[in-house]
């Protein structure tokens, strides 16, 4: 085979050839799509786990699911959603788009890029093999039940017998190495492969935020991997890093974990910031307000987020002065975040808003992220945290930022760029169903958790007694969960229907301004026949409006 088949011609070739094409591909766009498909798959799995959790909490003293299974369910749910749903989805979207947006043919390390995907996928597979090992094979027990942060000493050989925790450690660390290869590749691509003339301060904001995201991955994941290796040594080589009885420290795990864990939450939300910074201007028909301050605020968020990890540890009993420092540092994050929210609002202000589905998701993101951010500030206040830490209030907080924030924006991104990737439009009608069911279900599900949390309901209890005022709120939550499940069903239906019989998209369906819309939909494997030279932040605007180009103003 001297000449490879191109993306288009393989569509008609037999299934085996097609599969072979996907397995061997080094095309950043196909790798991106595989990441996204992987994310969808695990979203279904993690979603089912969540529905089971909610069904168990429907009534007091429910016996549907026993305590052990319940522990396994929330552990697997959290781990799955963070490492195998949000991470791959953002990685996939970035992989697909960044080279197109900076107008180049490929990423810096295409094969390494493929390796990153397969590591992530196999990481997920390793995690889930725990369900197949069972007590029968090798006597390993089943799913891990130590929470997504796997606190020591729950993970010590004494408490976690069998292999379940090993699958957690190995699955997340293998996929973590995958995330590292993604980040290395992305940084190199953005720094070295931009179209001629495109300065770093002219790349789309999504690219800016992914650049900082990738740096955060590079800083935050290695400590996690190190901690995981230490844990494996504890479990298999007789080391005692995290074993207080032999001179180890259980706190050490928490420090290492949250030094990764807090930046990780920003790793998951920065791409969302990036996506809506692309969507809002296009659907407001306005230039983004405060480009430079957006990029600077992102950098500030990245930096600050590295120094606040112990706000997850206020209840550990650290020194008061440490608590005060971490509390104050956490408040600081509100400033750059506020700048961003202000810029988005200012972009909307006076714009000619077009309420298409991507825009709806962007606005949904804005409103729910705002709520999540406010509860975040409350949690960063030490006495408040002492009250509501490890209650459902906390669960509400991080779902508002991670689901209402991150995942909503990522789904909005799917609507926005689906036409580019497939050449078909997603249906607006099904999209509306998807959005509204998700939005209503989401708020029914997580809104009441603020209340049940303040009423004292702890997180991670498999059941509760009647008469504490929690029943009603839990039932609302469970109803919300199912509504949301339906919403996501509409998402998948929409994708299937639109792939089959969606409206043709054309190259530039949204009348947008960044380079990815300058090529065909879907783009050929080499992205662009000719590489365009760039003179401003909106190269397509310049081409469409030669009488009034941006480079005169920038």
């Amino acid at each position: 085979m001297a000449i490879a088949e191109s993306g288009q011609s393989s569509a008609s070739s037999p299934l085996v050839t097609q599969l072979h094409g996907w397995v061997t591909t080094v095309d950043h766009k196909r790798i991106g799509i595989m990441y996204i498909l992987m994310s969808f798959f695990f979203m279904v799995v993690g979603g089912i786990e969540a529905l089971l959790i909610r069904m168990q909490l429907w009534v007091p003293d429910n016996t549907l699911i026993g305590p052990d299974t319940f522990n396994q369910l929330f552990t697997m749910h959290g781990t799955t959603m963070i490492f195998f749903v949000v991470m791959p989805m953002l990685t996939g979207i970035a992989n697909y788009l960044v080279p197109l947006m900076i107008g180049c043919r490929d990423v810096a390390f295409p094969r390494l890029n493929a390796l990153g995907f397969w590591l992530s996928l196999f990481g997920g597979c390793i995690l889930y093999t725990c369900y197949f090992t069972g007590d029968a094979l090798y006597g390993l027990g089943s799913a891990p039940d130590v929470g997504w942060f796997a606190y020591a000493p729950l993970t010590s050989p004494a408490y976690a017998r069998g292999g379940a925790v090993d699958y957690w450690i190995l699955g997340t660390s293998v996929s973590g190495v995958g995330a590292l290869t993604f980040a290395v590749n992305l940084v190199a691509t953005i720094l070295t492969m931009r179209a001629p003339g495109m300065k770093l301060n002219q790349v789309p904001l999504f690219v800016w935020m992914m650049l900082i995201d990738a740096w955060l991955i590079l800083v935050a994941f290695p400590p996690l991997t190190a901690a995981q290796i230490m844990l494996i040594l504890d479990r298999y080589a007789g080391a005692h890093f995290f074993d207080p009885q032999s001179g180890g420290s259980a706190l050490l795990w928490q420090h290492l974990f949250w030094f990764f864990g807090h930046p990780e939450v920003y790793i998951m939300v920065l791409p969302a910031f990036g996506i809506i910074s692309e969507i809002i201007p296009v659907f407001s028909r306005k230039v983004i307000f405060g480009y430079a301050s957006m990029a600077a605020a992102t950098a500030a968020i990245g930096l600050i987020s590295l120094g606040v990890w112990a706000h997850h540890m206020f209840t550990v009993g650290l020194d008061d002065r440490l608590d005060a420092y971490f509390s104050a540092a956490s408040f600081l994050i509100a400033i750059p975040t506020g700048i961003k929210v202000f810029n988005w609002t200012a972009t909307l202000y006076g714009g000619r808003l077009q309420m298409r589905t991507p825009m709806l998701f962007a606005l949904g993101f804005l409103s729910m992220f705002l709520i999540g951010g406010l509860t975040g500030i409350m949690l960063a206040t030490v006495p408040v945290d002492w009250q509501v830490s490890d209650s459902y209030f906390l669960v509400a907080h991080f779902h508002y930022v991670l689901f209402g924030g991150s995942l909503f924006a990522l789904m909005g991104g799917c609507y926005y760029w689906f036409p580019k990737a497939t050449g078909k439009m997603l249906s607006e009608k099904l999209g509306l169903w998807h959005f509204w069911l998700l939005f209503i279900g989401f708020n029914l599900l997580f809104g009441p958790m603020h209340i049940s949390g303040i009423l004292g309901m702890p997180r991670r209890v498999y059941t509760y007694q009647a008469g504490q005022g929690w029943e009603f709120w839990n039932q609302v939550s469970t109803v919300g969960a199912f509504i949301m499940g339906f919403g996501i069903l509409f998402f998948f239906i929409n994708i299937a229907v639109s792939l089959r019989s969606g409206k043709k998209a054309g190259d530039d369906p949204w009348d947008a301004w960044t380079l990815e819309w300058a090529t065909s939909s879907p783009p050929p494997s080499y992205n662009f026949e000719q590489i365009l030279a760039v003179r401003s932040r909106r190269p397509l605007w310049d081409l469409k409006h030669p009488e009034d180009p941006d480079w005169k103003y920038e």
Partner: protein
Amino acid sequence: MTESSSNSETSPHPETIAMPRPTAWPMVLAAGVGLLALGIPTNMIFSLVGLGIIITSLYGWFGQLLTEEAEVEEPLVAPELRAKPIKPSHKRVLAATPGQRLELPEKVHPYSAGIKGGLAGGAVMAVVASMYGLFSGRGFWYPINLLAAMILPDFADNTIAELAQFSLAALIIGVVIHLATSLMVGLFFGVLLPTLPSSPVFWGGVVGPLLWSAFIYAFMGVLNPVMSQYVSWPWFIASQFAFGIVMGLVVVRSEKISAQSLTPATNRESHDG
């Protein structure tokens, strides 16, 4: 540069484009890593096989990179599948505005006005709060200790008498919180003002304090339980109004500048020419 040369194409039209050759080695390598890992909880055999796969695939991968096998010449797709040229748009660009780059509003207060307003308002507020401390007989340090209780958890159990004592930590933390909040509110207000209709002092002196007080009233129980327990609401609201009115006056009296001049000039002009 002339307009016609902008966005010109830099590369000539080739027939084929060199792209990396598809390869299964990355997938095989990842499978090796996965097996290596799985061996740990299951059986060493898996790890050994995994290690073998890793070595083989690295050998294959690098071997491929070193030859011309690494790349393939991809032919261009059929002309009808290529992107259409981008045509000038006939859509009206928003009239009366410089392109759609209009910054709304056109005139704003300089950032410094917001900072000065915040500082002035904060100072007046501090005076009102201290007066409360003195007149209520709870002592000069009482208000600042209440504020600091937001961060200093051990204040939560203090009695009123203890809260009247001087504490250096509380003083520092209280001052920092107060300064930071005043500056933030001032800046926020300064930026927001020109976009709001009608009189600025109305927004700063009436609406702002009302909203802010209502918000604090609602959330104080969670934000700062100590303060919510001991604070005197009439004085609290009075100090909010003092802050808002003073800050509003300071900001309004500053001279408005064009929004454009908030961005550095060099940045705007570098592309002209």
